[in-house]
């Protein structure tokens, strides 16, 4: 075999072997942390729902409708923001939007300030908070939240008849 081919083959073997080891390692870490991560995300969703509604409603996991009782509908959406996936909780009571919160995100620190309850996102529950296209300086982050709100509104219209009786 020519020397160049041997060298290329050796490189491919080493890199391929390293990839296999890395993949195995990542799978192990994922298996060890996935349950805790899911529990952390659930607890964070639960906390924002309590903050939004004052109710301690048990939230189910792996569903978009996470609470559905006493005239309350809460939806947990997953949207793509600037830095990856973000959890968005949207709550309705008796057919009206109560508020929008983001319990987990990987947006750029600083730009993510609009997601603090006292900031922009806190006003989304108000009636005049409806007509916003985006927030200047955090366009992608704010659009992701608005997309989740729009999706939640649609889902809510389907779910409301049997949640709010």
């Amino acid at each position: 075999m020519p020397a160049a081919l041997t060298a290329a083959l050796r490189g491919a073997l080493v890199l391929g072997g390293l990839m296999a080891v890395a993949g195995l390692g990542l799978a192990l870490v994922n298996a060890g942390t996935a349950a805790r991560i899911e529990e952390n995300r659930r607890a964070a969703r639960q906390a924002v729902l309590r903050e939004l509604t004052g109710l301690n409603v048990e939230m189910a996991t792996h569903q978009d409708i996470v609470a559905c009782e006493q005239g309350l509908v809460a939806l947990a959406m997953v949207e793509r923001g600037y830095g990856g996936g973000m959890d968005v909780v949207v709550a309705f009571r008796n057919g009206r939007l109560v508020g929008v919160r983001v319990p987990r995100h990987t947006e750029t620190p600083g730009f993510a300030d609009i997601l603090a309850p006292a900031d922009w996102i806190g006003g989304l529950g108000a009636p005049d908070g409806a007509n916003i296209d985006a927030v200047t300086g955090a366009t992608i982050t704010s659009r992701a939240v608005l997309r989740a709100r729009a999706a939640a509104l649609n889902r809510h219209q389907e779910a409301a008849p049997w949640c709010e009786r």
Partner: protein
Amino acid sequence: MVRTLKLVKAAAVERNAAWAQGLGLCPLFAVTTSIENAAALALASSVVLVGAAAAVAALRSLVPADVRLPCFVLIIATLTASVTMLAEAFAFDVYTQVALFLQLVVTNCMILGRIEQFASRNPVPRATLDALGTALGFAFALLILGAVREALADAVPLAALAPGGFIVAGLLLALARAATAWAGRVERGAWAGRAERGA
């Protein structure tokens, strides 16, 4: 023991990634709004750097020169992804604050620089010590900047924002340069004195 200390000190102080080499400054400005965030990023970067340095040093005779960079990046990326998952599982509050920059540890040029320049050419113990020193120096810079900005934030709100980060970091870098220059003059002065005494 003395040689060990010298190696760590050279990596942490004289070749400090932040103030001597100007490397890794992006997270330095972005995340150092508080001590807690700075500490989280410092810890994550240290774990990745030391782990990657040890792994690369151990594999250095096995990895052919022409695929070494993909191999290094693969190792760094694997460690970064693992640290990110562990942080979300065991330090969720901090994770939500610095998540994006945790993922960006993989692109920190300070880490790849040290791996390529030192760890890939030295045995495991030396590579690990050098990485430890580099990480200590980087952590020190992050923590100082975080502490100053957190302390100033109440009185000068600008300090917590990005422009304030540049200003505070610029002042600290100038201070570090001045201190280094002063230390150098003292050392040279001491040498001159010894030469005069004929030592």
